[in-house]
């Protein structure tokens, strides 16, 4: 049986949903409503990054890049610490990993078909491999700094991945 994920085949709709996922995750779990949201990638120098793989009706990857200052703020907010505190590099990385996991999961749960996906454990960011073109991107501006999310699909893996998880 072939399962299609119609929302992922409509980049405009997908970008909107990724933007919505960014907004709700940042507001709800990190107490940082974005000042600006864009349906496009933003280059972030010296970013703290994370990536993960997802399998299900579609197979692909998700990456998140966060400016270092914003990553620090996100970590402090997530752990409920004072703004004068300093989170360790390991704590910041763990929070960026979790942020990538939650945004990706929230986005995939918004897909029209309601398919069940499995997400891998987040890893440090690496650019997508050849043949994995960025399909969707969205960025958020908070506290004067950017974070940028991007999702890419692995062509031809949809059917086998779909069967595996039914």
């Amino acid at each position, binding site marked *: 049986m072939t399962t299609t994920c119609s929302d992922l085949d409509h980049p405009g709709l997908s970008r909107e949903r990724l933007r919505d996922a960014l907004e*709700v*995750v940042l507001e*709800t*779990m990190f107490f940082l409503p974005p000042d600006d949201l864009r349906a496009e990638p933003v280059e972030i120098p010296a970013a703290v990054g994370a990536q993960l793989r997802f399998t299900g009706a579609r197979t692909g990857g998700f990456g998140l890049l966060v400016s270092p200052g914003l990553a620090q703020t996100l970590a402090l907010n*997530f*752990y*409920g610490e004072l703004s004068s505190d300093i989170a360790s590099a390991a*704590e910041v990385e*763990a*929070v960026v*990993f*979790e942020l990538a*996991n*939650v945004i*990706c*999961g*929230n986005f*995939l*749960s918004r897909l029209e078909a*309601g*398919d*069940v*996906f*499995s*997400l*891998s*454990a987040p890893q440090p960011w690496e650019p997508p491999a050849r043949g994995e073109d960025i399909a969707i991107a969205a960025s958020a501006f908070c506290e004067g700094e950017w974070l940028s999310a991007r999702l890419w699909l692995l062509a031809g893996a949809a059917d086998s991945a779909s069967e595996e998880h039914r």
Partner: protein
Amino acid sequence: MSLDVMLVDDSSAIRKMIRRVLDVSGIPVQQCREATSGLDALRQLAGQAAGPTPDIILTDINMPEMDGETFVRELRRDSRLAHIPVIVVSTDSTSLRRHRLEALGAQGYLSKPFTPESLRDELEKILGHERCQTQTPNATEDTHDDDLF
């Protein structure tokens, strides 16, 4: 009356955040980074004479070695552990996943992103308000992974 929570999640960030939230209510949390070690710890506790098993288990779904669905299934197969309520904490908010976990015997489902209030609400919904409010708050205590299984 004491209340003990077991938290099974491979994310150190989530473990620390949930532990902080429950610290505010004075609720102690046993942490496990893998479902396999969580299951081993629970079976060991259940085998002891006093049987001090946790009052409730919070578990992630996507974890290495053993996923959350298998973990819940294994808990329900073990007569010594089958009674412990389970709340699944996951980024997956699809009704299909939720129904699958309910069918396996999970009592609660908390979708990420969640607020600290929604976590406490979910615990109260299953354990009752009084059980979640009977301890002395200890919000200033720092949290570590000292008791990690």
